[in-house]
């Protein structure tokens, strides 16, 4: 009898989370070994939305690649596009007009806020607070309205082109952005009231899913996930692009490394993004919205690497060009792919509910993992 009990104790209860599961934020599949409620081991299986974008890019011109980087991390689409545009501009030695830099910085930060809003919705929903979902998406619509007026699209706009922008901003742009900042400064404390200060939320996130600084560096966990562990990895500070060397902003760092720290990093980043926008929105200089570009872009032979700070971390593009109008090899260093690999380090020993909370705090976008 005792043998039998021991044998049963040894056995693991294996469940499949995903590919269709409400809390994996897409088609990620996690194979969990459980012991009661406690997760013993978690094995991520990705690739359910692997679309072969890197291969497709080898048959596309540089202007066309923009349309695929949109669809990698669709929540920070503009920022991903900026990486490719900056790379091409750097390779060709083009200096974009000052106006473009201003607009790009503002739109990047708006994208970051929109992305963090959506993260906040889904994080709240993962914890079981369904109302968060509606609050976050309600405010996100305001940003999408601004985008829609200027770019014509809601989610995927392909607004940046190598050398500048697709078209100039809408005359209302500045006014609407200012209105939004005013509105959102009032609304953001509501988020804190609803979720941040909640006892249940704090009990469920503090001390859960601790990621040490060494692990964060070794796993290459960047973005808010890394900065929650004290890893100073903000590309905007380390390798400033656009106008980030001219504006004042803090790099948000928390040392705890738990779910709550990652949560706080994102909440604080929204404030920082707003302050960045406020510094720029009144000073957009007049000028062209694009530099003079040839219709066919041929990068000089060589290797190029450009990184930007996407909403989820460091997004890098590596391009090897052989002098053609098509790149020879394109590699996207997607932040989520590295962030995913920390899962098996921080989850074991926690409960299923914690796994969901940790997953929410790492903020996956599955097409970005799978490319």
């Amino acid at each position, binding site marked *: 009898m005792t043998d039998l009990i021991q044998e049963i104790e040894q056995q693991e209860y294996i469940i499949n989370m995903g590919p269709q599961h409400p809390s994996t934020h897409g088609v990620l599949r996690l194979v969990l070994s459980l012991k009661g409620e406690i997760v013993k081991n978690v094995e991520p299986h990705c690739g359910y939305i692997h679309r072969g974008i890197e291969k497709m890019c080898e048959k596309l011109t540089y202007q066309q690649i923009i349309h695929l980087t949109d669809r990698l991390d669709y929540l920070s689409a503009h920022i991903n596009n900026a990486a490719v545009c900056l790379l091409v501009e750097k390779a060709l030695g083009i200096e974009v007009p000052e106006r473009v830099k201003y607009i790009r910085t503002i739109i990047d930060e708006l994208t970051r806020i929109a992305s963090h809003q959506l993260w906040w919705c889904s994080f709240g929903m993962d914890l*079981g607070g369904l*109302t968060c979902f509606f609050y976050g998406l309600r405010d996100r619509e305001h940003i999408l309205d601004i985008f829609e007026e200027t770019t014509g699209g809601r989610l995927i706009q392909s607004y940046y082109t190598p050398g500048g922008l697709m078209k100039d901003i809408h005359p209302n742009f500045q006014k609407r952005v200012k209105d939004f900042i005013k509105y959102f400064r009032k609304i953001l404390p509501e988020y804190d009231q609803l979720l941040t200060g909640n006892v*249940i939320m704090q*009990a469920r996130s503090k001390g859960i899913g601790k990621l040490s600084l060494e692990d964060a560096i070794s796993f290459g966990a960047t973005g808010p996930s890394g900065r929650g562990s004290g890893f100073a990895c903000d590309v905007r500070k380390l390798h400033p692009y656009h106008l980030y060397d001219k504006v004042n902003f803090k790099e948000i760092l928390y040392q705890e490394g738990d779910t709550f720290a990652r949560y706080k990093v994102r909440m604080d980043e929204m404030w920082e993004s707003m302050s960045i926008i406020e510094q720029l929105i009144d000073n957009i200089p007049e000028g062209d919205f694009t530099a003079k570009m040839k219709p066919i872009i041929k990068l000089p032979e060589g290797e190029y690497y450009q990184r930007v700070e996407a909403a989820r971390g460091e997004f890098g593009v590596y391009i090897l060009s052989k002098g053609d109008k098509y790149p020879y090899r394109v590699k996207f260093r997607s932040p989520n792919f590295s962030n995913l690999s920390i899962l098996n380090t921080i989850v074991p020993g926690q409960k299923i509910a*914690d796994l969901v909370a940790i997953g929410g705090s790492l903020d996956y976008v599955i097409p970005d993992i799978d490319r």
Partner: protein
Amino acid sequence: MDLNIYDFTSFTKWIDTSLHEMMSPFWVTACEMTIIGVAILAFYAVVGLYLVYAERKICGFMQNRVGPNRVGPFGFFQTIADLIKLLIKELVIIKNADKFLFNIAPFIIIITSFLAIAAIPFAKGLHAMDFNIGVLYVMAVSSMGVIGILLAGWSSNNKYSLIGAMRSGAQIVSYELSVGLSLITMVILAGSMQLSAIVDGQAHGWFIFKGHIPAFIAFIIFIIAGTAETNRGPFDLAEAESELTAGFHTEYSGIKFAFFFLAEYMNMFIIASIAATVFWGGWQPLWISGWDSFNHVMAWIPPFIWYISKTAVVIFIMMWFKWTFPRLRIDQLLTLEWKYLLPINLFNVLLMAFIVLKGWHF
């Protein structure tokens, strides 16, 4: 207080005697049971459907939306459309499931929630059955629902369902204690377990005012534990949509799923009506000593309205919980019960007994 105009006792007596004139006692019993059964069934269906509708509208209100508004005026027939849809949906037969238990589980859940209604007094004399141990009966019956949940989770042959069922088992067994003890506190004050007697005792002041501090503590605990017992957010661990897809009823489709769905709302209704009955005076109007004309106006409002509106307020509070709080984790849930609610509750029982002994209540 002149409540005789709303007294249903004579009405039920009249039905009873006129039936006795017509047929033999056996048939009278059969006939009365049928009438009561049909009445409660109709009540059950209407309340269940409109609670679902109310929940949708309330959650819409809390989330800056409108909620259903296309089917009928203000979407009033939305849940009826849902019911029709669920009625004709295919019942999926699960391979390797324990067929007998799988099929019987939704019925257990819906029957237990059905049984509990029998003991609740809707107005004076409007009572399916007036047990002298009414409080005990309601508690016993409503906690039987967990058997249905456990069976559903076990027999589905689905791992998520099993986890959901086990969570639900642990949760309901724990919180049953708090529900029971907080009711016992009120039984000490009322001096009776008969629900009609408890209501009668509140003709001159509801127990929540009469029993002041301990009654208030008991009410808070009852609401928390009651929410947990109905598996509603923030204690909806058995379903936990973001963790276990749909928890114990993952594999159920069509009308069997509707049973679970409906039973959840009915359990909420039962918990709310017990709270209204035991703490807020059931169908008794608001009575404030000295304000005679005010009391008279209050007494003119029919008791059924009083009862329904009190229940509605409690239900609204429970819905408010669900749409505000994030979900607890299973260990935090049990900690809350065993380390906080239970000791406070035990102390509260003592306090209430002491107050009743000393006669310090109003």
